[in-house]
């Protein structure tokens, strides 16, 4: 058992026992080899099941919303988890004092099938948690990704027809299970636009147009808030290249409206809810 796992169990148990937190969110081992699954400890005894290794693929911060009425919630956070927490605080889903964060520097997660670094972790710029109450283990030196927007650049370099083919194929195979939405820490709407058929945003038909409407508009809705965790793409059962879309939007915002990284703080000026009189003028 790794040191981090031991410390994590000890700290989570201690926090639950002294009443600091009402629940703790981490990971436990799954049924299969190298498989992990989110664990929500509601009882101090549950903390013995906690583990931390390089196969903890889930970003778990979103569970705080379900649990917050129980009291203060403890969460094991890596870089991406902590940014998700910040993001949800900024979106007024809960307050910083509603969570107690055990920070864990992330060794980068691996794909359990291939044993190689997960796609979503490959261009991670913040492996250390950006906010925490306690840090377990040593903070590591961050390495900036070679190209933050590599996923988008793979596509944006292609010609129009090729890009269209990629995305048509993707939206064609989308089954509208909404896993990308449900796993996303930015998707905190009570009622998603897709569930409002009476407004007429989109129909329930499964076809390219409706799926593209869903895919594009969901991406646009989170565009200035996306924390680039890549959970949507990992969760997608149909392997849609969702990060190629999100990264494109994030890149455009950064280029046009100034550099930012969502979720690094709780008072970011989101690009689409602010403006500058000196913004580039291309519609003259």
């Amino acid at each position, binding site marked *: 058992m790794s040191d981090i796992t031991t410390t994590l169990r000890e700290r989570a148990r201690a926090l639950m026992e002294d009443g600091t937190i009402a629940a703790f969110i981490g990971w436990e081992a799954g049924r299969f080899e190298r498989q992990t699954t989110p664990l929500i400890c509601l009882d101090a005894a549950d903390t013995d099941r906690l583990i931390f290794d390089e196969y903890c693929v889930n970003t778990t911060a979103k569970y705080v919303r379900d649990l917050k009425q129980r009291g203060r919630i403890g969460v094991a956070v890596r870089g991406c988890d902590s940014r998700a927490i910040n993001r949800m605080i900024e979106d007024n889903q809960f307050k910083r004092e509603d969570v107690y964060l055990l920070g864990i520097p992330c060794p980068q997660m691996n794909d359990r099938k291939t044993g190689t670094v997960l796609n979503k972790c490959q261009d991670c710029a913040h492996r250390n948690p950006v906010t925490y109450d306690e840090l377990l283990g040593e903070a590591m030196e961050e390495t900036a990704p070679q190209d933050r927007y590599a996923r988008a650049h793979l*596509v*944006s370099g292609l010609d*129009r*027809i090729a*890009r*269209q*083919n990629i*995305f*048509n194929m993707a939206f*064609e195979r989308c089954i509208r299970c909404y896993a990308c939405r449900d796993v996303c820490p930015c998707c905190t709407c009570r009622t998603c*636009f897709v569930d409002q058929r009476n407004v007429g*945003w989109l*129909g329930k*038909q499964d*076809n*390219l*147009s*409706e799926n*593209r*409407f869903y895919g*594009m*508009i969901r*991406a*646009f809705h989170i*565009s200035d808030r996306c924390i680039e965790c890549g959970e949507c793409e990992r969760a997608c059962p149909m392997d849609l290249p969702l990060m190629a*879309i999100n990264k*494109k*939007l994030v890149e*455009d*915002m950064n280029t*046009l*409206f100034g550099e930012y990284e969502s979720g690094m703080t709780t008072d970011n000026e989101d*690009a*689409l*809810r602010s*403006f*500058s*009189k000196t*913004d*580039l*003028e*291309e*519609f*003259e």
Partner: protein
Amino acid sequence: MPVVDEKKTTEEEWEPRILAFACNWCTYAGADLAGLNRMKYPANIRLLRVPCSGRVNPQYVLEALQKGCDGVLVCGCHPGDCHYSTGNYYAKRRLMIFKRFLEYVGLEPERFNVKWISASEAGRFRDTVKEFTEGVRKVGPLKESFTLAPSAGDKLFGAHNESEAPASEEGGAA
């Protein structure tokens, strides 16, 4: 009743269908002025009046493009002149991003644009409509280029009236 463009099915008869969202205070008034001055511009454009370009949800744009408009134009006040002081600044950011996004997933750049046209710029309105219409005409019907997947019901719409079988009597009675 209308199947989409019943009579405009062949290539040469195709006329672009263009929707423009126009801010009530600037562009809509500018278009009114163009009328007052009896300016001439292509009849393909239909204006949809909104209070402010800030009201134009990119979702409307995508809806229009996917449901059968060949081009969509959004027009508002020049930045700084917004009747509501800031609406067009937000619109600008949203639509700058959305335009790039549309092109990224494969839409021709000619099909979507944003223009600032004040209430006094009737000539600019006319020129914009002309240019935009020509641009859309050049790239042709959107149905083919943006791959509008037929909705499952597409082949049914209009089919009943065409066949005009007595079966409809039964249907009516049922």
